[in-house]
């Protein structure tokens, strides 16, 4: 299963792509595949504050509804409004065009609570057993 090398990951299958003081957040290939066709994304409000591992957004698929948790704390500075009419972008391009929110990070140290790509790949192997 595809994993992006320089991203960090949560056990709930969210990713974060850190670039200096800001970061993009989304869900992983494993998550989109398990959810199936995504039909709705509830985006967070711009300027809202979010804590690490707290609810950031929600997605609905043809199979289920599930919450998306923020990999790190910060302020939401941009959301992917393309998902309003094209939620399937998450299925098609979960690591790039299907990003959910851009966050201004509160504390870069929090990334030590996340998995690296190599750790996440190992974590996935454990799930497949």
């Amino acid at each position, binding site marked *: 299963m595809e994993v992006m090398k320089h991203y960090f990951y949560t056990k709930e299958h969210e990713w974060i792509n850190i670039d200096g003081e800001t970061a993009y957040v989304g869900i992983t290939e494993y998550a989109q595949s398990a959810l199936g066709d995504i039909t709705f994304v509830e985006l967070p409000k711009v300027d809202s504050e979010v804590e690490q591992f707290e609810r950031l957004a929600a997605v609905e698929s043809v199979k289920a509804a599930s919450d998306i948790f923020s990999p790190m704390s910060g302020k939401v500075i941009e959301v992917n409004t393309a998902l309003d009419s094209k939620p399937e972008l998450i*299925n098609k391009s979960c690591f790039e065009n299907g990003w959910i929110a851009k966050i201004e990070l509160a504390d870069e140290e929090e990334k030590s609570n996340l998995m690296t790509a190599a750790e996440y790949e190992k974590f996935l192997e454990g799930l497949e057993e």
Partner: protein
Amino acid sequence: MLSHVDTPLKQTPLYSAHIDLGAKVVPFAGWQMPVSYPSGILSECQQTRTLASLFDTCHMGEFLVEGDCFQSGLDALVTASINDMPVKTCRYAVTLNDNGGIIDDLIVYRLAPDQWMIVVNAGNIDKDEKHFLSHLKSEKSFKNISPETGKLDIQGPLAREILKDMVKGIEKLNYYSFDHFDVLGERCIVSRTGYTGELGFEIYFPRHKINILWERLLENKNIKPAGLGARDILRVEMGYSLYGQDLDDAILPLEAGLDKFVDLSKDFCGKDGLLKEKQSGIRRKMIYFCSESRRAPRHHHKIFQEDGREIGFVTSGTFSPFLQKGIGFALIDRAIDLKGQPIFFGDEKNKIAAQLAGRPFYKKGTLKI
């Protein structure tokens, strides 16, 4: 109805074929069934609405009943009149418990003036068999042929075109009729029935040879396998009930929107219970509604009025690829007149606006072309 069961899950003869095709398999009504194939549920819906899909329905149950419908006791087992059915036609009905609750919904096939096939839900085969045996005049007139019967559903606007070479004469079948055909050297029943709202057929074929039929059908590029996920969306778009969600032992057919399949001019098991409920006032009714957004109602969501009053619960809900909105059915308090008023689905924390809608949600179905 996704359910956890204590007994080991059963597999249809096509289980390995589904795994080889990369299907995701889930427990359903005691069976391990494909929920989707790698193309995904929405793509399978689109395939069914525009071309044709192949569904493994070997899990469903089939009974044979011999004899005159009145003398055998069969007529009294179903809510619809069956004595007036022409031979080679099908009829939808329900069978009720003493309280008027629904034991199962089923389709009656009149094979000959005195011979019948009853097709029942997979999860209810044992319960139905017991109910039939206890009400038929003679056990000898009944046979559960599910163990030797396989079934495939071919559904979609191209279904007839796809089958016409393999099933010579299929063009003559009208909606809800059937006949015996020679299919790959086997004499079998093919009916023009289905659960998707599209032109479609169900083929009853020897179970031990069903893999041959499955593979032969998939040689045609216009037909692809589809799973329970697509089947559920397609049937909700048509407003068709699913036993275990929209129908169960505690739901009356007159609550579930099945009034036209209940003939109160005849006698049937459960009629007394049903009439008693009717006299004291039926308490609930089924409504059909459309979300105002892409958000979909889910089974067990609550239904609220604008003032926050809880008035019922969602029995089936899904995202409709046709409407690009959430759609669903709900059982609500019958006394409430919702005309023109918005309703809300969800829970106390999260309420999503919706509007009443008519059945079917999907109005372009090809089932009667």
